[in-house]
């Protein structure tokens, strides 16, 4: 069992047993910043259209130092990520001055934490009826008919939620899953199956175009709005890349902060339980579309660190990276970027009143098989955990668009599949906090060694040294180098009035330096007497300096 995790449990953290609305989030981050002002500061990166703030917590003793950026709520339906991000900030702040390893970490590394990237969309969780929403409120004509936001969902059966509706129809493609009748799946005609239902999201065809709920309010999903593999005219991808204030603000923040070496985000784009694989480029496209060869093993190692720290597995398949934040942070902004869902119903929840063995049996289904369908797996998990009212039974409803057909409303409670019960947030967030801290301790770190002075005659000297990376990660990823945005290690030779550089540049870039002992040798010829200073500085790796006296070493 790892020590940091135990120490974290001991850190006192204010407990909130509820998901936080924009107002509750604002008061939580303000409280943290005011109560821990020596190590936490709070800024707003942007105002959203609904007047919410895009909050940024800066946790660290020296904010300009190398940093990790943590982003929650990239997909607004993932509310848990926001909660984990806030708790991580709280744990870091509480650990400063009380837990030696955290104190040391925060003296060296800054954690920039954006708890919720899409506050306007997340507010849907606190609105009625309850309806999942990933998009900003920017008006958008999704169906291109000239009318904007004219056909959103409705709560047909007045149960306070927007779920699904199924319409009995001999032309329907859907049928209830024979193993789990609460879940609908498509009939496989080749296997002799016959569909019985048409399936729609709950609502009426407001604009009478025979499509249901195809143009709801707003329409840009931030996790489809970034430049990497952006889908022009894609669903919810926005009018163009970075069209939203929120996506631009976080992008500008990253471009403006070269000290951010690593980006961690809570998002469905999972490269921690399933690390990216390098694929040799095909065709003639100049775009990099898979992880660079030299970065692959570092990414895999961090994935392993995640698995070992959190013991999480069986994650649902990663979402596509088209326009996604996490992929953008690596492929276009050039940072080490890691992302994973905050939660998924995979393992039986630990420490519940039911014994783990029987839970495991229950979640694996009757035949002991794991279902491939994430909704089936999820429903079994909730059954086993004793959480009720996740699966909503199909119930008859009157529907104006289908006066002659049987219509039933049901499905799965909105937000249930992405977010654990609120009372388990403290517990479930703990391994994530631990992982984020460990990630922070794996940043590149500079040291100058083997400094040497050789006298070449009279007052002429050759000064040389090795610039060493003590950290686990390279000073820049291969993609970071390729991206041409990031600065490598800059070496300066500072000479006093008595020393003149005869050859070599006063300032020169070196690197990037590989992880765990990667180095570069620098040398100059100088004349004069006294001392020279060598400094090495890289925004993502920190600084190192030595002073060398001009006389033959040893």
């Amino acid at each position, binding site marked *: 069992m790892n020590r940091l995790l135990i120490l974290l449990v001991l850190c006192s953290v204010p407990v909130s047993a509820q998901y936080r609305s924009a107002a509750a989030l604002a008061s939580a981050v303000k409280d943290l910043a005011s109560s821990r002002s020596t190590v936490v500061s709070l800024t707003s990166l942007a105002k959203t259209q609904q007047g919410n703030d895009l909050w940024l917590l800066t946790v660290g003793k020296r904010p300009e130092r190398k940093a990790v950026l943590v982003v929650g709520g990239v997909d607004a339906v993932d509310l848990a990520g926001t909660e984990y991000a806030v708790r991580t900030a709280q744990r870091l702040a509480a650990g400063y001055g009380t837990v030696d390893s955290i104190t040391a970490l925060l003296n060296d590394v800054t954690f920039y934490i954006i708890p919720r990237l899409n506050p306007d969309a997340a507010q849907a969780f606190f609105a009625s009826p309850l309806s999942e929403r990933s998009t900003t409120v920017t008006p958008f004509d999704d169906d291109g008919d000239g009318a904007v936001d004219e056909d959103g969902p409705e709560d047909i059966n007045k149960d306070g939620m927007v779920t699904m509706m199924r319409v009995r129809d001999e032309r329907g493609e859907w049928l209830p899953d024979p193993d789990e009748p609460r879940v609908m799946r498509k009939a496989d005609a080749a296997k002799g199956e016959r569909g019985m239902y048409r399936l729609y999201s709950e609502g009426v065809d407001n604009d009478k175009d025979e499509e249901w709920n195809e143009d709801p309010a707003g329409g840009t999903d931030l996790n489809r709005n970034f430049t990497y593999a952006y889908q022009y005219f894609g669903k919810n991808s926005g009018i163009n890349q970075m069209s939203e204030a929120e996506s631009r603000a976080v992008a500008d923040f990253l471009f403006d902060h070269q000290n951010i070496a690593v980006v961690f985000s809570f998002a469905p784009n999972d490269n921690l339980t399933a690390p990216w694989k390098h694929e040799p480029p095909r065709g003639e496209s100049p775009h990099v579309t898979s992880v660079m060869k030299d970065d692959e093993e570092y990414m895999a190692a961090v994935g392993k660190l995640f698995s070992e720290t959190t013991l999480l597995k069986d994650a649902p398949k990663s979402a596509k990276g088209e326009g996604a934040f996490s992929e953008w942070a690596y492929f276009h902004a050039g940072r080490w970027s890691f992302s994973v869902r905050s939660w998924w119903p995979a393992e039986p929840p630990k420490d519940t009143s039911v014994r783990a063995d029987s839970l495991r049996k229950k979640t694996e289904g009757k035949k002991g098989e794991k279902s491939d369908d994430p909704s089936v797996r999820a429903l079994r998990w909730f059954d086993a955990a004793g959480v009720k009212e996740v699966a909503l039974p199909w119930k008859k409803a009157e529907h104006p668009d289908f006066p002659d057909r049987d219509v039933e409303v049901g499905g799965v409670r909105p937000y249930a599949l992405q977010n654990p019960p609120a009372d388990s947030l403290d517990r479930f967030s703990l391994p994530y906090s631990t992982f984020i801290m460990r990630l922070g301790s794996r940043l590149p770190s500079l040291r100058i060694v083997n400094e040497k002075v050789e006298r070449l005659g009279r007052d002429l000297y050759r000064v040389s040294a090795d610039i060493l990376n003590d950290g686990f990660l390279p000073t820049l990823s291969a993609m970071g180098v390729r*991206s*041409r945005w990031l600065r490598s290690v800059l070496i300066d030779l500072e000479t006093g009035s008595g020393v003149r550089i005869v050859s070599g540049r006063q300032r020169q*870039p070196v690197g990037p330096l590989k992880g765990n002992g990667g180095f570069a040798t620098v040398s100059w010829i100088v004349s004069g007497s006294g001392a020279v200073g060598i400094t090495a500085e890289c925004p993502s790796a920190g600084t190192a300096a030595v002073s060398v006296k001009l006389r033959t070493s040893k």
Partner: protein
Amino acid sequence: MMTALRSRFRRFAGWLIAATLAAGTASAQQSREFTASALKAMGAPNAPKVEVAWNRYYDSQQLYEIMKRMERAYPNLVKVHSIGKSVKGKDLWAMTVSNRAKGDPDAKPAMYIDGNIHSNEVQGAEVSLYTVWYVTELYDEVEWIRLLLDEKTLYVVPTINPDARDHFIHNANNPHSPRSGLMPRDDDGDGLFDEDGYDDLDGDGNIVFMRIKDPNGRFIADPKDPRLMVRVDADEKGDYTLLGWEGIDNDGDGAVNEDNPGFYDPNRDWAWNWAPRYVQYGSDRYPFTFPENKAVRDFVLAHPNIAAAQTYHNNGGMILRGPGTQADEGTYARADVQTYDFIGRLGEEQLPGYKYMVLWRDLYTVYGGEIEWFYGGRGIVSFTNELWSEYDYFRRAKDSTRDVSQEDLYRFDRLLLFGEGIVPWRPYDHPQYGAVELGGVKKAWTRTAPSFMIEDMCHRNMAFTLFHLYHTPSLSIDTVIVKPAAGGMREVTAVVSNARVIPTRTAHDIKNRITRPDIVSLEGAEVLTGGVLENRWLGTKKEQRTAPGKLRIDSVPGMGSVAVRWLVAGNGPVTVTVDSKKGGRAVKRSP
């Protein structure tokens, strides 16, 4: 010192212009009387209300003053407005040009024109400005122009890079700088921004070349024109080494002029086929990083009536269309390419020496270019003209080429400019290189037309864009035929036609649902069924099940028509209306 003096002079000059404007009405009147009696040459107004000399290049403030004069002279045709601010806070001045008495300019089919996105490519602003000047001055005189401004709208933004335009004009530059806008960038990755640009060592306002005597050099002075440096043959020795553009190593990093103002390419900043900077040199953070481009984007999104677009660059004598990359060929639908070809070939006739070209195929690969966004992002037929070409020097009967030969450049300077365009080599004591010589082309020579050819360039390019505007859709309802039908109903057939080459929605627009479908609606009777006639003579109809009173049609093709038919109940005349975002409106009442 130098700069302070110059800026004081500029302030004085600004005051002088203002004073002249205020006191100038009477003398302008006299001047009009004087010129009105001359023999009018075709193509220009004899007694313009707004006198503009088309033989120089104006800075952004001067451009604005001329726009305001046009607005004052023709308030019903011209409205000057700002579409946004530059990096340095200057307004991006635009003109909306249309006859307001004949309808809301924003509801008519329109063309967007801009110039000068590359700041050193100045003449696009003059061509844009000339276009507005010409159509306003000749509105009463030329029927073709009058009808055009009655039916259509021009949105003209002479410069969308005023910061760096003024930098080009008022600061020392070479013909190729700054090109970028003026948002600071760290070009050399040393953490400092714009710290090592060119230096006007001799203070003559031009950034020219530096050469140093070198017995092992590879260059000699051209024996025919010693101002021109030529490379020696492989087996010869030269006299000089060329040291690049005028400058010093300002930041002591061993490199000269490696971090100039900017640098980015504003024409790689657009949201179509955009690529990051490791793919596309000059690209920046994301599409519309720069406020000038963002302002154009916002303006275009707010004006869905824009059906045509033109941007001006220099140089090379080209009429360019997208795609910018081979991989994007599929975006340019066949039907749309035919439209492009028609207008592009018209341009080749109007602009001798210019060639109609496809960017990636005939010039080079571009990701994230402006006209590609106009078409790819908004479905708008759009061209870039590269003003001033090789052909313009001596008008030899040969094709224009992208790269002007140095020999012709110097020869033209000698034979027609009498040496004004070139700084002859002269010694200079360089603080880092020692004894060098400075010389070469002045910034206003090479890429910009000389004074006496500007008006020709303006008029011919304007003519090209006016035909482009002319060919934006012109809709009418040709016929509305009402016939009695069984059961006391009536059958209404209407034919909607487009009298121009550009369709109401390009194929790309239709495919991606960029603008809404055109709507053909019937009023005056109760519509029972309705639909588009797939074959109007056979009467085969595609029924629209919902809301048949407002038929949604994909497009009215260029020089084509769409026929629709309804069954209606009720008597009395009916009114048929077509309403298109890019094609405008037309209405007809049945007899």
